[in-house]
């Protein structure tokens, strides 16, 4: 009896620690699609400009985030202070990353890597689908990049991308929430890290 309890305890522990929160309560379904798309930064004619608020541990700072599609599969991502001085200037082209500029205080490997991963996740246009899940109101597409997984949550009714969750095999690492009012324009974006106390909140500049 004790042995049975021990085994069942260990088994349940195993399942708890290994199951990913992201897909809890979802049912896996068959799928025909090959790729899932992030529609928010696809138009090369649009300057995507956001007011940014960053909270890191207990510090707050703000700035302006500018995203522009500058070629096929190529995006420029620039962050400036409110006064206009550049803090960083990155370029993503497929899997190639170019650091055009980083202000000295931020130019540390672990900071640049976090920023690089976050903004790559944000601007990546599409990814190959590994699995598809369904909830009551959403379809969830699982994709893979290197040793991480990304889950794209698309609402059934509006067909809008609502969320991207980046995970390891067992844990959620980063979640990006979108609200989109116009077609394919993300009005607000919230990037939230689970392993470090970092959130980036973005709000699209209003049209004049």
């Amino acid at each position, binding site marked *: 009896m004790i042995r049975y309890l021990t085994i069942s305890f260990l088994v349940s522990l195993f399942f708890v620690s290994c199951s990913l929160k992201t897909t809890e309560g979802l049912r896996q379904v068959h799928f025909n699609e090959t790729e899932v798309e992030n529609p928010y930064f696809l138009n090369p004619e649009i300057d995507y400009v956001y007011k940014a*608020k960053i909270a890191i541990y207990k*510090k*707050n700072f*703000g700035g302006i985030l500018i995203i*522009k599609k500058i070629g096929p599969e190529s995006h420029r991502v620039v962050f*400036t202070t409110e*006064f206009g*001085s550049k803090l960083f200037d990155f370029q993503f082209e497929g899997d190639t990353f170019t650091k*055009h500029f980083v202000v000295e205080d931020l130019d540390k490997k672990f900071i640049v890597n976090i920023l690089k991963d976050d903004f790559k996740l944000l601007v990546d246009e599409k990814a190959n689908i590994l699995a598809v899940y369904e909830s009551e109101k959403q379809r969830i597409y699982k994709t893979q990049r290197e040793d991480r997984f990304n889950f794209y949550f698309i609402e059934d009714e509006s067909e809008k991308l609502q969320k991207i969750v980046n995970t390891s095999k067992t844990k959620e690492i980063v979640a990006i929430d979108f609200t989109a009012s116009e077609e394919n324009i993300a009005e607000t974006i919230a990037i939230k890290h689970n392993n470090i106390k970092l959130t980036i909140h973005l709000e699209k500049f209003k049209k004049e």
Partner: protein
Amino acid sequence: MRNYCLLLYFIFIGIALQAQETAMNASEIAAFKEKVIASAKTTKTIKTDFVQYKHLDFLSDDVKTSGNMVFKAPGLVKWEYTNPYQYSVVFKEDQLLINDGGTKSKVDIGNSKLFKKLNQLIVNSVKGNMFSDADFTVSFIKSSKYNKAVFIPKDKKIASYIASFELLFNKDDAQVYEVKMIEPSQDFTRIVFSNRTLNGPVNDSVFNN
């Protein structure tokens, strides 16, 4: 053919509209400096609106933000952006008091030499009186519409952020009406002032933020 004529017309108009710039000679520089310093000395307070244009080469349009600025001698400055978002910064002694749409924070700039320098630049450029600054090489340019002072930083660290700094002055009252900060990449930030009120009453509570 008609389009071609129009194009030529615009090219010529364009050239004609562009103010011819020439370097000032020694006596013009002396007279200009004197006028700016005299004007700065009598300036106790400034209230002005501004429009800021951030130019990045790869963008279709400059990123435009606007607001107002209040200055009170000797060194209190409040920059307030009101469009398209609310954000204000008060430069007060060795601190920056920031109010980012309701989220308040303080930044101590006492031990950051670079930040102090940038702060000093902002305060002095508002007044226009920064010719005696030993950290810059200054050159003076005139045109029919404005006088221009171009500042090039000597310090390598500052030069890695700002390639040059230009102030445009009204010819008549020697007040700064435009500030342009050019980055080493040639991207720039341009701030254009308008609706300026000089020496009106400004309560200290403006700078509480």
